[in-house]
């Protein structure tokens, strides 16, 4: 089966006569990014994470449905195809442009020009994890590795890997070194 292409036409409908914004028959709100971030900051990490999970699941669900309609699934699809849909959904929602990097066996998402800076990363990390988990029906975690200006890197990994990377980053290890130590065979050499 061929992978379904991402079509952004008619992705968002502005019904000005009714005062409605719809995306795939689902009502949306057009709010200020700063207002949203301020709300997340005020609500705390758990509330922000829940909010991001909900947004991410919606994105993942949309992607999964497209692949299902094409007779395939996102997990078995090509990397480029899944990245195309993920990036399209994030772009329509205003979360920046997404790309993928593969560092060895590690899957790293790179988001450029996302909302805010570090506050936006707290929102993006759970959003990406939920989107991938919902699209591929797996339990994935997401850890922000680094931010360099408008570019942020997020690692998609399992629960243990996410905890290990967080510990390494908190201990002052660079994200590159953390990725190396995360790989089998190199962890002992890196720690010794």
């Amino acid at each position, binding site marked *: 089966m061929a992978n379904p292409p991402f079509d952004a036409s008619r992705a968002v409908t502005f019904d000005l006569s009714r005062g409605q914004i719809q995306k795939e028959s689902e009502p949306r709100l057009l709010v200020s990014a700063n207002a949203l971030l301020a709300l997340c900051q005020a609500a705390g990490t758990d509330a922000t994470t829940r909010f991001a999970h909900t947004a991410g699941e919606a994105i993942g669900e949309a992607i999964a449905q497209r692949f299902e309609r094409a007779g395939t*699934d*996102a*997990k*078995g*699809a*090509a*990397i480029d*195809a*899944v*990245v195309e849909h993920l990036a399209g959904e994030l772009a329509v929602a205003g979360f920046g442009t997404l790309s993928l*990097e*593969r*560092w*060895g*066996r*590690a*899957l*790293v998402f790179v988001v450029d020009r996302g909302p805010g800076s570090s506050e936006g990363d707290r929102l993006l990390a759970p959003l990406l994890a939920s989107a*991938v988990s919902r699209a*591929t029906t*797996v339990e*994935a975690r997401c850890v922000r590795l680094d931010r*360099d200006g408008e570019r942020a890197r997020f*690692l*998609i*990994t*399992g629960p*243990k*890997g*996410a*905890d*290990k*990377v967080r510990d390494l980053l908190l201990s002052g*290890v*660079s*994200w*590159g*070194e953390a*990725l*190396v130590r*995360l*790989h*089998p065979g*190199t962890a002992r050499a890196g720690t010794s």
Partner: protein
Amino acid sequence: MNRDRKLSVLEALLARVRNRAASPRASAQSASSVAAPATPQAPSPPSLPDELPALAHPAAIASAPAATASAVSPVAGSPPEREVPTEVRGVSAPPRDELASEPPGPEPDEEEGPPSAPRLREGLSAADERIEDEEAEEREQEFREDEGPLKTPPPESGRQHVAAPPAPAAEASDELDIDISVTVTEGEATPSPVPSALGRESASPAAARGIDMGAPVPRLAFVSEPEIDLHLRPQASPVAPPSGAAAESRSEPASVPPVVPLPAAEHPPASSPPPVRLMTQPPVDAERGTAAPVEVWASTHAPSALRGQVASFVGQNASFAPKSFGELLDASLQLGES
């Protein structure tokens, strides 16, 4: 050939003539027939007395005896006068070597020679041939002494004087050894490989043309210009690939066309492991011409701590090639499990 020998030969021939004259025989007809091929004047006896002085010329030596024989054959019977010619010939012969071999034509006795003149002429001609052969051999000896060894001439060209061959190679090599000189100076910093054969080829023609070899000769090297520039360039200009697609570019090092000079301050510390370096050939620039090969580091804009770990990812990327998003996702989810 010496004179005594010629005189002896002539005396022997004269003795034979005298002997023939002592027993005359009427063979004038046969004598003229023999002499006819050698001399066209023979059939004209009446005009012979007038032409006798001309017989003294060397060119007429061979024909003189025949004409004389045919002309004097009727009066050949006077033996007492035979001794006169020898005396006259003995006086007149020494100053003229060329006439020594010819019979004394102007003598009246000789004009009235015996009918055996054809045999005398044969003997004289044979003696002349021997003399000429000997002289030819002597000339050959002279040629051999004066000139170099004769090369084989073309068969139809006859004898040829072949010029002396060129000087032996040993002499030429001695001269070249003087001219060929090593032009390596102490001020040269980069030891460019100079092919010895090329140096010899360039020095030999110059020496042969008398060019002054005192000044250093421009050296030719096989090292190309870009290579020289690269080696002469200061080492503080390593290059760094862009930061964006760092991971992807590591999996495909050859597809990193843009190169950015890395400041010296960003160099990794000496204690860090050496990063991955590649020699790449940039695409040809229309304005700048052929670009020199550059050394590319695998990681560039990444933090210094990451630069030392690039090699690990290079190996991981090469050994792992996921075919689907799910395969990559599973691999990434399994990180940290062990």
